[in-house]
């Protein structure tokens, strides 16, 4: 990155705002945003799989408990959840002396926690909807072959449901990327945070924010493209012949 910045330095010579220093800041913000979004999506996905199966379970208390969880996290703004995770947790009596304090002290982990629980709630509902929409005949056929519930889930329901959930999940990934723009309120230097800093420094809202909008657009299109490819492969059986 350093060499790249050095090599384009002459090209930026006349530019007051986009100096190599500011571009390095934007790069740092880019890395932080991608890292934050990627980790919370992966953790959220891992969490959402068992939760969505539990949500579809006939065991009422389990299904209800998971519904309450998704309802709380989908019913409140992510910003509020982030504030609770960052400022709220720090005021639990005794937490500053406990072993988890180094984690909570760092703004990254409270943000990851809030983002992960939020995306897990949405993903759970997306997967649950897809599981519910599995054609009854497929499930009955699996039963008729003598498959246990577990095997039916593993062989029939999940492979078909997750494929059908793919387009909706692609949207969730892009929403998560855009929602991550609030991370700067807890001092994380993400893309939006850098744009704020550059704006405050040079009083140039258009340059600072349009540039950062382009960065987000590039990321969004990359995600969209990846999901398009994935859908082409995974949903080939649903395409018109």
């Amino acid at each position, binding site marked *: 990155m350093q060499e790249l910045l050095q090599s384009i330095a002459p090209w930026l010579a006349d530019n007051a705002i986009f100096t190599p220093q500011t571009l390095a800041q934007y790069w740092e913000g880019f890395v932080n945003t991608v890292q934050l979004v990627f980790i919370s999506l992966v953790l959220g996905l891992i969490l959402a799989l068992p939760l969505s199966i539990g949500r579809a379970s006939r065991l009422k208390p389990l299904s209800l408990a998971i519904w309450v969880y998704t309802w709380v996290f989908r019913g409140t703004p992510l910003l509020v959840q982030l504030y609770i995770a960052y400022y709220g947790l720090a005021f639990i009596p005794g937490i*500053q002396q406990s072993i988890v304090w180094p984690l909570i002290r760092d703004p990254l982990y409270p943000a990851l926690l809030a983002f992960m629980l939020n995306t897990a709630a949405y993903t759970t509902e997306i997967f649950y909807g897809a599981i519910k929409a599995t054609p009854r005949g497929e499930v009955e056929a699996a039963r008729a072959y003598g498959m246990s519930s577990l095997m039916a889930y593993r062989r029939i329901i999940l492979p078909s449901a997750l494929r059908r959930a793919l387009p909706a999940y692609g949207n969730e990934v892009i929403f998560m990327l855009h929602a991550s723009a609030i991370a*700067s*309120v807890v*001092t994380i230097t993400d893309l939006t945070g850098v744009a704020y800093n550059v704006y405050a420094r040079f009083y140039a809202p258009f340059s600072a924010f349009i540039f950062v909008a382009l960065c987000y657009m590039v990321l969004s299109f990359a995600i969209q493209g990846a999901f398009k490819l994935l859908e082409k492969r995974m949903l080939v059986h649903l395409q018109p012949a």
Partner: protein
Amino acid sequence: MKKLLTISLLSAAVAAGSAQASDDNTVRIGVDVPYVPMEYRTPDGELTGFDIELGNALCEQAKLQCSWVEQGWDGIIPGLLARRYDAIMSSMTINDERRQQVLFSDPYIVPPSAWFVPDDSSITGTSQQDMEGANIGVQRGTVQDSYVTDNYGDVANIQRYASADDVAVDMDTGRLDAAFLDYPTGEAALVDEGNYKTIGEMLTEPKEYFGEGFGIAFRQRDEALADKFNQALETLRDNGTYDQLHDKYFGGGGGAPEPASGS
């Protein structure tokens, strides 16, 4: 210097705006409340603060009938230009962008910036060595942010917050080792509320960071009115009224900021 986060008090401004200034002796002054200790309300609802008391004293000196009009910060200059009030006295930092729209009085105070640390902090000085590795909290986009970023960015970890209150909260949580804020704000949010102290000197220099100070803003053509205020300000500085007020709000001893020198 001042953030945009105050609730807009439009209704008050609109109500006051409908009243016309009928004769030359009445002056309506726009102010964004609260911004402790510059302008705020006492528990019984009375408007007070350094700006308010100084403003009233100036009006008395200049033999003007003054009233205060509350207006949210976002619309405070448009409100002046739309004649809802005739002046703004609301901790407004004088700068060139604003000069293009309004006429400023002489600066009536240069609010200093100061370092705040917990009472039991191990940080004793404000040099780069003292701040090495420290977590420093600032309000994003303020003059303090620029100053710390340029002077301590290489040695310390700078955390930027949306408001001074957020900085104060994270001083309480222990995430921050030091905060660099505008002195009146930090004094009100940290020293008055908890176990914090200032260290090092109050900073009003260099000007490229800390600006020229707070001024009263008028419409460009109201030069006569601005002159009246400037003269009144000079008189109050000479007869000690200014110093009394200054002592009342910023304390006489130790950490008191220097009164602004005249233009």
